[in-house]
């Protein structure tokens, strides 16, 4: 009993700093943001006026919130899908033995290590309508007759942004999938071969089931990170053209720092937070992490 009480104290003492840190860095700002959503508060006046649910009513009546939400879904699904495909293909290629393997593996990690601003500038240059390499090649090979305005075109901007995010963050998926691939028991492949399974069949029956947990984890983590992604999109399109790439974080930013309405921005952020919370709860209900880890083994 005494030991148990002392153990509790020990647990409290060792976890308290981390909890305090979390409280100050994460929970207090979240609580402040949620409380702010019930006030009218502009950027140029420190006073706050209680407005109840009026901020929520305003943004829910605005089609802009729903449009931004839908664009967030498109961006998240597109970027995560691309990252999974890119990660899977590159991990399968890197899971083979060849000369210079370590160097090639290092190169594949590089995009993930680059700051977003560097990636944004590179893509702006590559895809520029006026001086971009991609347009130059497309024009020279006769694929197009006029340069394409990738980041500025209504029909192309979202795909260009998705492509950029897919390239940059695909390496994360590569790393995780490669690590999992290397832990699959080779005897499983031998057994599949003995049963007459070819490469594709072995991939379907051995590789994919073993990757299931990893793919789900990547989809969840990258899904959350992409849904919240601000910098990559902001740096290349500022949410344009005509809000074609304005996702929920950019919408909230616009409300706060262009319309200077912190109350509305806080309401938009709270909505975003709730969406992610619901997504996370559904995930944990559908895919119990403990079981998934068991299955993954």
């Amino acid at each position, binding site marked *: 009993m005494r030991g148990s009480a*002392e153990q509790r*104290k*020990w647990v*409290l*003492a060792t976890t*308290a700093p981390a909890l*305090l840190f979390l409280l*100050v860095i994460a929970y207090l700002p979240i609580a402040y943001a949620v409380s702010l959503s019930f006030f009218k508060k*502009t*950027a*140029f*006046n*420190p006073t706050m006026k209680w407005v109840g649910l009026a901020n929520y009513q*305003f943004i829910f009546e605005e089609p802009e919130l729903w449009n931004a939400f839908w664009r967030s879904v498109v961006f998240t699904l597109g970027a995560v899908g691309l990252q999974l495909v890119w990660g899977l293909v590159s991990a399968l290629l890197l899971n083979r033995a060849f000369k210079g393997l370590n160097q090639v593996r290092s190169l594949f990690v590089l995009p993930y290590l680059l700051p977003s601003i560097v990636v944004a500038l590179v893509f702006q240059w590559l895809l520029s*309508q*006026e001086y971009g390499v991609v347009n130059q090649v497309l024009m020279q090979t006769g694929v197009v007759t*006029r*340069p394409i*305005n990738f*980041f*500025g*075109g*209504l029909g192309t901007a979202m795909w260009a942004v998705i492509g950029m995010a897919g390239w940059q963050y695909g390496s994360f998926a590569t790393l995780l999938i490669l690590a999992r691939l290397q832990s699959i028991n080779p005897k499983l492949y031998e057994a599949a071969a003995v049963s007459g399974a070819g490469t594709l069949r072995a991939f379907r029956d051995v590789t994919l089931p073993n990757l299931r947990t990893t793919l789900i984890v990547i989809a969840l983590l990258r899904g959350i990170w992409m849904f919240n992604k601000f910098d990559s999109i902001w740096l290349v*399109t*500022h949410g*344009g*053209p*005509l*809000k074609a790439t304005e996702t929920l974080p950019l919408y909230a930013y616009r409300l706060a*720092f*262009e*319309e*200077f309405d912190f109350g509305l921005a806080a309401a938009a952020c709270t909505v975003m937070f709730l969406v992610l919370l619901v997504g996370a709860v559904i995930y944990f209900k559908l895919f119990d992490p403990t079981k998934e880890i068991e299955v993954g083994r």
Partner: protein
Amino acid sequence: MFIGRRTFVKGAAVSAAAAVAPQVLVRTARGADKSKVLFVSEESNPKAIAVYDKINADFKKETGIEVTMEYPGFANIAKRVATLIATGTPPEIVWYGAGQAMNLAIENQLADVGDVLKATGGTAENLRMIYKGADRSIPTSQQFTYGWYRKDLYDAKKLAAPKSWDDYLKAAKALNDPPNMYGCIIPSAETGASTLLLETMFMKNDVHWFEWNAGKKEYEVSLDKGNQKKRAVETLDYLNELHKNSPEASTYNWGELMSTYFTEKAASSYYVGSRLLDQTIANNPKIADATVPFELPKKVTDAYYLSIQGFHILEKSNVEGAKKYVTFFVKHPDVISWYHAVPLHIIPASREMLHSGKYQDNPVIQKRMDVLKFLDYIWTKGVPLYYWDGKELNPYIGLYHNENLAGWMLAMRNIKGMKSDAIVDEAAAQVRKKMKRVS
């Protein structure tokens, strides 16, 4: 060693107090400290910074007041000021556009500076910003939105500087040779560059977003009414025709307005002030001499979108110290070097200074007296947006201007292909909705 619950709670409380205390102390100290002035300036050109440093040192010698500078830059200054206000430590002085400062005025954050204006010789009527019966701005400089064109290219096609809307369209068509050269630049995006173009062209066609209701003594949206709507539609359709001779350019910002021009991709462009010339001289001097200003052509009026920059002093700060500093700055002999930091771009608020030998004693100005004469010619035609719709300061302009609604209108017309009358209706509806929320 174990930490008891009580010890832990005590420790946490002390930590929290330690975290909060500096904030409280800063807030208390700032209001009381008459020996310090925090000055946030939009102008961050190295030459301008050198002048600030010199004047600030002289000011400290004379008064003992220390001036601390912050240069958040054009894009971030409003956010920086908002942060300082929100944390209870408003800066004493903000130097930026009076249009942006109006947001502070209507939130009752700006001090009455009528006494400073009087002490420094006053200012032109069209540069004053009066709110609740008091001056809220000490104008130092101004910029007009006007065009720049390649005289060599125009001459080669025997074209003169455009004087009318038809001239401008004709010249743009004649010089358009995409993708090597475009006749003009009509940025069509939700950016400040697009917004100022349409707002200026609206002025040229006498389009007003608001009208003054004398009975109610307040402004009401008029953009979608009668002649206003007719002229707004006409302006959008005209810019749509021009846009056919422009890069599609739906991500255009201020930088691109200049770079597209000085990389010889466009025969004409426009800017707020002469920074475009400054950048052309720096990046492509061979076309600098052929870079000539022109009035964005009139349809109904000669009015110019006028940006006014000046000092703004915040209430709840060291107001007396700030007033002393601004008076000292404006009267300081080195202030002329500050105007020369970007010659012909930072235009003095005083016409007398523009005409003075001291101001004109600069190699760039001497070389480009044509630009100075042009500025002198359009001097009285500038109108700040908040006085465009009437004699009373219009507090609602932020509802469309801050959000680049005019840029949105251009983009909807030129990029999305929406009909102009539907765009005008939608824009007016958006402003009305926001007015309702503000009220």
